[in-house]
């Protein structure tokens, strides 16, 4: 009997399950085909495709952290402001002497130091989010709403409200350069996604994340240390937002304290389109990346089709709601 059951599981292929699981990839392909036809092929130009991915790299990286957060039934509204903090902090350590306004005159540090400073700032703010949520029992929505406002203020104070410009070419290479003919941001997104996927699926930390989202009470009785876990997940989200901030600053060659405004909504949208459930316990990294790509494809496609930016917003709103409706159906 034992062999029969084992054989059973190996041979039976669950077709409807497969379709449900990968429906989102089909939707992405559908958009790609549709836009290729409508634009007469210009959408499919390799340079255009690379542009699409380059543009969504930051959203994809943030959506990766957001996926962890939403799996545990949380939300992180502060990522956009953390983007700005990391952008101004790292930029301030990457200025060249030619700049008219220099934050730290005479200071020259290797580019790795400015990057690490930006990452540390992001992780620290995320850690504070987690501590507020785990330590004081504040709802994630409220704690990160507070951080969203406060961190934006910090970025403005730190930079004096002005963009920090004239950054070193080494720093700008992160957002603008290529490595083996592929833009650096795409490499970074790919590495982040793979590492996060491994964490979620092949480590104890990942299983604990799903357990906390699946049933907090049961996770507690199973001996899982929930406070540390929550703090770790929000710190991770902050760290990745910091990375996205560095990427965005180096892409435009300036650390703008207004950077990242509204990007939290794009990241949440990407995670949710990718199948992460607000009810907790469900979500994948590849889904979030595909979600981010769908956002990028739609944006790019509508630009190519000369659709007005106002109309683009309406279309995006409709697509978000449609994606959720389809998602609810498939879970039934």
């Amino acid at each position, binding site marked *: *009997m*034992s062999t029969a*059951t*084992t054989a*059973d*599981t190996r041979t*039976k292929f669950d077709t409807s399950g497969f379709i449900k699981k990968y429906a989102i990839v089909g939707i992405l392909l559908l958009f790609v085909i549709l836009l290729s036809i409508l634009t007469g092929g210009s959408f499919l130009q390799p340079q255009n495709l690379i542009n699409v991915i380059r543009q969504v790299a930051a959203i994809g990286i943030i959506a990766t952290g957001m996926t962890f957060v939403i799996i545990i039934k949380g939300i992180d509204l502060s990522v956009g402001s953390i983007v700005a903090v990391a952008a101004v902090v790292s930029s301030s350590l990457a200025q060249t002497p030619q700049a008219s306004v220099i934050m730290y005159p005479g200071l020259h540090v290797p580019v790795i130091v400015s990057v690490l400073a930006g990452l540390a700032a992001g992780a620290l703010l995320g850690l504070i989010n987690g501590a507020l949520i785990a330590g004081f029992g504040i709802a994630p929505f409220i704690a990160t709403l507070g951080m969203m406002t406060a961190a934006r203020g910090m970025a403005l104070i730190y930079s004096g409200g002005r963009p920090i410009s004239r950054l070193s070419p080494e720093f700008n290479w992160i957002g603008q350069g290529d490595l083996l003919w592929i833009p650096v941001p795409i490499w970074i997104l790919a590495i982040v996604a793979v590492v996060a996927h491994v964490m979620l699926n*092949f*480590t*104890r*930390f990942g*299983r*604990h994340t*799903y*357990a906390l989202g*699946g*049933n907090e*009470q*049961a*996770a*507690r*009785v*199973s*001996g*899982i*240390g929930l406070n540390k876990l929550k703090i770790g997940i929000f710190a991770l989200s902050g760290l990745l937002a910091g990375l996205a901030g560095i990427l965005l600053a180096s892409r435009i060659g300036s650390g703008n304290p207004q950077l990242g405004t509204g990007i939290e909504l794009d990241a949440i949208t990407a995670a949710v389109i990718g199948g992460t*459930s607000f*009810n*907790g*316990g*469900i979500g994948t990294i590849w889904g979030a990346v595909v979600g981010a790509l769908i956002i990028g494809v739609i944006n790019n496609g509508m630009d190519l089709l000369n659709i007005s930016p106002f109309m683009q917003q309406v279309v995006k709103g409709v697509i978000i709601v449609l994606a959720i409706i389809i998602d609810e159906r498939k879970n039934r």
Partner: protein
Amino acid sequence: MTDEYLLRMQGIDKIFPGVHALDHVDLNVRAGTVHSLMGENGAGKSTLMKVLIGMYTPDDGTIVFDGREVQINDTATGLGLGISMIHQELSPVPEMTVAENIWLGREPKGALGLISRRAMNTATQELFDKWEIRISPTKLMKDLSIAQTQMVEIAKAISFDSKLIIMDEPTSAITETEVAHLHRMIDQLRSTGTAIIYITHKMDEVFKISDDITVFRDGKHVATLPASELDRDKLITLMVGRELTQMFPKLEAEIGEVILSVEHLNRGHLVRDVSFALRRGEILGFAGLMGAGRTEVLETLFGVHKADSGTITINGAPVTISQPKDAIAANMALLTEDRKLTGIMGVLSVRDNMIMAALPKYSPNGFLNRRRIEADCQAQREALALKTPSLNQLIQNLSGGNQQKVLISRWLLTLPDILMIDEPTRGIDVGAKSEIHRLMSMLAQQGKAIIMVSSEMPEVLGMSDRVVVMHEGTVSGIVERADATQERIMQLATGPDATAA
């Protein structure tokens, strides 16, 4: 035509999936009397009352109230007819005042159809004056003690001027003084012709206030008698007098040395001075009525709640347990009572659900050892004859019995010495039930020590080597298997009494 009965419920039948909750039950209540409903947990008392107030629709049967046949399809209809109920689970709105809670949904209106707060407070004060309740109508519900909340709920039920008031365990949370107060209120209501249906587990209370007593057992009506014709022993015999038809394959196990000893454990008012010892190979049953504190003892031992005081000794060494992690480290396991609320992680796979408590073992360096997980989960699946198409299946798609098996596996994978199981077979079908009993027996044979909380008498008697009986947070007796009878356990469960020496 005059009828001495205010209420006649006849042939009431209610079937839930898998359970015949009410089997053609009759209940006749005279006006101006207190009629007590007695029976073990799950005998059907609460279900029958929910039918009466319109929360459940019966599958069959008729209700005649105040001389008319009535259909009660919702609670508003019940209230309109003059039937109100004090619920076992209190449900006040904590952020509202006492007066607002009492008049919720029927607020007195003033000019312009707006709610008149003054009229509401005055009406509440009059009500409270009449019934000698000393609580300010303008206080917020959340600032009241549990006993005060209970008194407000009682006042609310009376304020409907009902002809029939149902009281489901109204004295479970209040002190002696308030119990006496409530009994005076009941006497007064009775003298004005109001009928009261009273549900309680307290024996002394039953005989103090009842005119008539109806006994239920396993969803069936057993007897209705005047209270004067009954005494404690007769009543208990009526309540438990079932034949033990279900057979459990309890296997002989060698009882070893003491592994766990608990002394003077205290936590809140539901765990008071609890002491007992548990041996290897033993199944120690915990019996008692609902709310006796059995679940709380397990949760305190496991660190879900922190103990106020007491010592826990495992294998001769005292241990401190302040969170479940500590208990797991001491080789303890707890299968909780409510599978859905504190057990399964519904949207996760069977495999993930199985390994959750034993994860450190399967990921010594943080990374999962997938091969070992797969091997051990498959082994559990076969050992427990788990019915699932695959380990990838979401646990929420499994039957209750199979979910329970997965949860047992979750704890077996931690290789516990002490296994605590709260209601091992609640809400699962007969086949899976006996499989789980056989499994528990086998685990005991392997030398594991098992604590089993159960509200099902046949399960307690069939599975236990010894039975700890609890009453209102204290251990009222520990009975050896040979001496364990339904009557003996019920005597202890209903509280210390002169007759139960």
